[in-house]
């Protein structure tokens, strides 16, 4: 029987919190950037010229149909060679995670907007509202309701996906785990703590998501 000894982690708590902070910050920043990219791309695709639609579709499919790990490694190791610009691991991770999130958010936004009955556009036009206003005040609020579950889902995934940045030595929670393991020889304790921390952040998020979903559906 393995004898657990969490006290062995005592000297490393600083590193662990540090890693958790990095993970959370990467998530927040790339979710925000990804949502912005997704909103723009999703809306553009709704009535884009053919060439633009093909371009945006290509972007989305490339990021959806290759593993994030491959994207990260490619952007970090291959892209700088191609464009001749050195990129820090942090920058490479930021770019990749944002574009990755953006590709998924774009589809979620587009789907949500298309799911709104086109009679809603007509009702807005019939009372003399302009396109932009109809979109913001009539269509988007209804689209968001449809999208909330998928948005939350994707955001939860995004936080889990940040663990991949440890591969290019960005010091997130998982990376600190491997550092501490190397120093303490306590992989079971270390990775158990790390799993619990991921869970402790994400579980409340899913609870909040359920709450929001229930509240927003109140008038249905």
């Amino acid at each position, binding site marked *: 029987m393995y004898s657990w000894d969490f006290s062995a982690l005592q000297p490393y708590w600083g590193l662990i919190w540090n890693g958790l902070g990095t993970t959370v910050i990467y998530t927040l920043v790339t979710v925000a950037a990804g949502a912005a990219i997704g909103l723009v791309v999703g809306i553009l695709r709704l009535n884009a010229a053919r060439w633009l639609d093909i371009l945006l579709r290509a972007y989305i499919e490339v990021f959806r149909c290759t593993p994030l790990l491959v994207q990260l490694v490619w952007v970090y190791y291959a892209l700088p060679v191609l464009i001749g610009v050195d990129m820090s691991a942090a920058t490479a991770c930021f770019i990749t995670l944002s574009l990755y999130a953006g590709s998924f958010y774009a589809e979620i936004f587009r789907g949500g907007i298309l799911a709104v009955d086109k*009679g809603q556009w*007509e009702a807005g036009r*019939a*009372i*003399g*509202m302009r*396109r932009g206003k109809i979109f913001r005040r009539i269509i988007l*609020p*209804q689209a968001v309701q449809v999208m909330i579950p998928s948005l939350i889902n994707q955001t939860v995934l995004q936080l889990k996906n940040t663990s991949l940045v440890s591969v290019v030595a960005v010091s997130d929670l998982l990376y600190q785990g491997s550092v501490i393991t190397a120093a303490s020889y306590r992989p079971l304790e270390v990775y158990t703590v790390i799993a619990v921390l991921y869970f402790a952040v994400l579980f409340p998020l899913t609870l909040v998501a359920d709450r929001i979903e229930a509240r927003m559906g109140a008038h249905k």
Partner: protein
Amino acid sequence: MNGQQRPILVAEGIHKSFGNLHVLKGASLKVAPGEVVTLIGASGSGKSTFLRCMNLLETPQDGFLEINGRRFGFSQTGAPPRDRELVALRRDVGMVFQHFNLFPHMKVIDNIIEGPVQAKGIPIGEAREHALDLLSKVGLADKADVFPSKLSGGQKQRVAIARALAMKPDIMLFDEPTSALDPELVGEVLGVISDLARDGMTMILVTHEMGFAADVSTRVGFMNNGVMAEIGTPDEILHHPKNERLRSFLNRFHANR
């Protein structure tokens, strides 16, 4: 039309195609202020499309439209109406849809003030006051603060009518306003429309309620194959039809009752 009065709406030679489907083939209509014109005709004859051309939800490819002095000419090659002109026209022309199209995320009162506040820039307080008046006019004064999903179909359609009236339109278009309703709810909506007719509102409505058409209309128009095949008083059209197609339409209609 009675002749003397300057028409409030003129639609002349309207053509509209969707791709290869030529739906309107020179449809025309003149409406004097205060008139109630009912459009009847077989499904697919172009009634909805014609109505939707009148507030430019559809842009015709030929013909012209004049509403209250605003004039729009259409041609295959010409530029479509500018956004600002479209918006201005629609503020004067109310439309009520078969499926209500209320905004489900807004309370009844907010549905009604959305147009006046957002499209016309009316102060919220003033818009609310007017909206509450309109709600009592359609018999729903107590429903201001509920969401549309809590209403029956008949109530939803009455809210939709109030929403259109809130823009203080010069003319109202109704596209089969009772077709989506359970039979027992049809009466309350027709009642509201009759009230409007009595108040002198100019209206064009597409309906299959022949009895109602006979009661409230100043004229009835029969559309067939994308044109106004025959138009006249309710008595002329419903009881003394000349057009062969109209006769068989009415026969079929009465047979199905």
